[in-house]
Structures are given as C-alpha cells and as structure tokens.
C-alpha cells in the first residue's frame, strides 16, 4: 500500500499487470484530473482566467482545459469577478444546474469578499449564495494563482470520500 492511502500506488515489480487500490482513490483520481470549469466571468478576473486557459499558462496541464459554457457539462464553477446583487441569483441558478459532484473557486477579491466595492449594488462575497471551496486572493490574481487554487482543489477532491457521500444521498421513495 502507498504511504498516502488517497493516492494510487502501483509497483510493477510486485503487482505486474494488476493495480491494487481503493475505489475512493481511483474515483477521485478520475475526478480531480478532469475538472471541467464553468467560466463564470463577470469582470477583469475573467481576462486572467482566459490567460490561464491559453498556451503560456496552459490550464490543460491540470486537465481543466475544457471550459464548458453549459453548466450541465461542468464540474467546477470559477466565479471570476464582481458579483452584483442583480447578477447574484443568475449565478446561483447556473450553479444549481450543474450536476453533482461540483465545486466552486472564488477567484479574486470581488468574488471572495466584494473587494473594493463596499456598495449597495455588490454582493459581499459569492459565498453568500454558493459553497466556495477555494478562495483566490488578488485583484485580479495572476493565472499562476488560479492554477495554484486549482491544484489545492485537486488535493481537496482527492481526499473526498466518494462512496460514502453517494450512500449518504437521500433515497427517493
């Protein structure tokens, strides 16, 4: 067994053509290496998000290059920018349409806390309406910061108990 039980261990000398692992670990391995983002670009952070997707920073190194503009095909909502109260419920509706399991990155100061906008019109952090997994500091954060957040999220996804959460889902009668 590997030292970290959430990682997949494979020793060719011992195991040959057979991989011995835990179901949680292998399912999480699938999940965390293909987090398809839903780019919720609302302000200048979205420009950095685009840069993260382009060749210089290349988010595809982490399996997240498939930006889906449909919530039904995405796993990860990247809220990049200022969430106004007028936009708030639209963001929530898009999040609600994403299939489980799903995660949220609040990219930048605005999405995390409202940023410099202490105002009647700006929601003071998207965590008022969504469960945020990773917050990224910066105004706007550089693409590297977003990639770091993605790696942190991958670590988090890798530790989630898949089987148990699926059993815990309510059974419809």
């Amino acid at each position: 067994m590997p030292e970290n039980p959430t990682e997949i261990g494979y020793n060719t000398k011992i195991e040959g053509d057979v991989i011995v692992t835990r179901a949680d670990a292998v399912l999480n391995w699938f999940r965390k290496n293909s987090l398809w983002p839903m780019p919720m670009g609302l302000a200048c952070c979205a420009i950095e998000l685009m840069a993260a997707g382009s060749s210089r920073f290349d988010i595809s190194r982490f399996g997240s290059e498939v930006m889906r503009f449909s919530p039904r095909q995405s796993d990860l909502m990247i809220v990049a920018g200022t969430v106004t109260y007028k936009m708030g419920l639209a963001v929530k509706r898009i999040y609600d349409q994403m299939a489980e399991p799903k995660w949220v990155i609040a990219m930048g100061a605005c999405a995390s806390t409202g940023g410099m906008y202490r105002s009647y019109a700006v929601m003071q952090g998207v965590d008022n309406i969504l469960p945020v997994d990773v917050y990224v500091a910066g105004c706007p954060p550089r693409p590297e910061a977003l990639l770091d957040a993605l790696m942190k999220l991958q670590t988090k996804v890798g530790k989630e108990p898949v089987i148990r959460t699926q059993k815990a889902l309510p059974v419809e009668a």
Partner: protein
Amino acid sequence: MSTTAKRLAQKLKKAFSTALGSVSEFRDELTLIVTDPAQIKDVCQYAKTELGFDYLVDVSSVDNYGEDPRFEVVYEMYGYEHQAHLRLVATVSEESAVIPSVTSVWKTADWHEREIYDMMGISFEGHPDLRRILMWEGYPYFPLRKDFPLAGKATELPEVAFSKPAPLEGGPFVTTAGSEDRQRGEPRSKSVSS
C-alpha cells in the same frame, strides 16, 4: 472659449427669455440656467434644429439635499458643425420630481434619462420606456440620492434579487466627511483599525 458658443447661448436666451436665466461662464464653459423646466423640451428642440446642437453628450442629475428645489438635471450639448459646447441646468423640486423628456429631440436621451430615473428617482414625462436600467425592476430605493446610505439597504424580492447593507465599520473604504483636508479624509490615508 469660442465666441460661437457665446453667440449661440445668447441667441437661445433671446428665443426663450422667459424660460432661461443668465448665462454664466466658468473655466471656458458656458452654463445656462433653465428657470422654467416645463419648457426644457422646446428649448432643446430649438437648440438642435435652429442652433445646430446635434449631439447630446450627456444628461446627468445632481441632488442638492437639504435645498429647495432639491434636484438639478444637467444637459450637455455639442454641435459637430460649429464645435461649440453648451450646458443647460434645469431644477426639479422634490415634491413633483418630474421633468419633460427630451427623447423626442435626441434619441440618445433615452438611456440617460432611464439612468437618472433609476438612480435619482426623477421621472421623465413623455419617455417611451421609463424602466430601471441598472437596478432590477422592483428595487424600492433610488441609490444615488444623498439620503440613501453608502452601504445600501436590505431588500428582498423573491426569485429576482436580494441585497444586504455592506459592512463599512469605519473601514478603509469610507471617506470621512468634513475632515480638514482631503489628505486626511481620503480612504487611503486610513488604517483599517482606526
């Protein structure tokens, strides 16, 4: 300051001597006070068709809270032909908060007037589509009025939007009113704890 602008302003004043007040000049800009706001549409129509002010640069509004009349609506106009600029300032009282729309003169006034309606709560008589433009339909306040708090107010409109007051708490975002100079009043000179 172009003599053309002065000449045109005097011409406009002569045509509407009952509706217009004095012409004032400040830093090479001409301002005409509209003493009878009910005639603003006719004044603008004349300025456009007879005096060649074919471009409405902006319409904005001012809240002189505590004074009467409370509001001012400011029209910035410009003519491409003679390249002269002129500003009209019309006063609007708090009780009526209504002024005729100039959308029939310049189409571009449409969204400017909707913004003023949304932010300041001044209605425009004869506007073809006077809805809120920035805030959502059903928002109960006019947020750029001086008696509206900077932090905002809590509202709830199910299925549409909600809002909560933003935390200010004397933080780095708040300008201190009445401080001796801007250096001390501006947010950047303050630490978060003070």
